[in-house]
């Protein structure tokens, strides 16, 4: 296809393909964002005293059931939100299709791995 090919906008849009699953990603980004508002505030409030303390303080903090529940909520929300955000950036700034696809696969696999590593660490 050439730049100067004459097409009506609809035909051109059809040629480019519809968004299809795009809306669900947009939606998921909002849902994770809403969940992360309280979870991030909780996380920052939790982590500040821990940075000034040692390993025992960490174990005590992680020993609380409510903290385990909130952490296992926080981590997947964080990495799901992060994967969606980084994917949008890759889609916007990477020009070559092969680079774009490689970046998206790497982002998804990295975020999944980080989620699982964190949850295993939390539940230990």
């Amino acid at each position, binding site marked *: 296809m050439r730049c100067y090919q004459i097409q009506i906008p609809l035909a051109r849009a059809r040629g480019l393909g519809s968004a299809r699953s795009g809306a669900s990603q947009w939606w998921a980004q909002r849902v994770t964002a809403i969940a992360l*508002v309280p979870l991030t505030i909780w996380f920052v409030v939790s982590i*500040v005293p821990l*940075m000034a303390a040692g*390993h025992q303080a960490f174990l005590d903090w992680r020993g609380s059931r409510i903290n385990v529940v909130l952490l296992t909520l926080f981590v997947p929300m964080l990495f799901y939100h992060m994967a969606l955000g980084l994917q949008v950036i890759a889609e916007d700034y990477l020009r*070559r299709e092969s680079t774009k696809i490689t970046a998206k696969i790497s982002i998804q696999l990295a975020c999944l791995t980080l989620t699982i*590593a964190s949850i295993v660490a939390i539940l230990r």
Partner: protein
Amino acid sequence: MTHSHRPTSPALQIYRPQLTSVLSITHRLTGVALSVGSLMIVAWLVAGAIGPSAYDGVLVFVRSWFGLVLLAGWTFAIFFHLCNGIRHLFWDTGRGFALRTIYASGWAVVAVSTALTIGCWAAAIFLAWGVE
């Protein structure tokens, strides 16, 4: 790709920076910075699961000057992304698009995220003081 030679948008060389555009790109940049910071969270959680010596290793890094600079950056990034993210969620309801409102909410994000960063570090320094 259909059009590989078309210019990318926006053409940053001819754009005058405005609060709106600066905050928009800062939202992305803080998102990327926080993505890097998430690696630190995972390292911290994993070290905590491994044991005291691994955990102390993370703390030594965090409390080094390099670690503190990173932490300061992530603190601002987290509060900025949080505040501007709430601004985005408001926009998703179709509200707050008048030019004056956009600028007011933009400056509010700058002020609140700066205040929260300073407040957070004041609390951290106060707590660290109590330990020593």
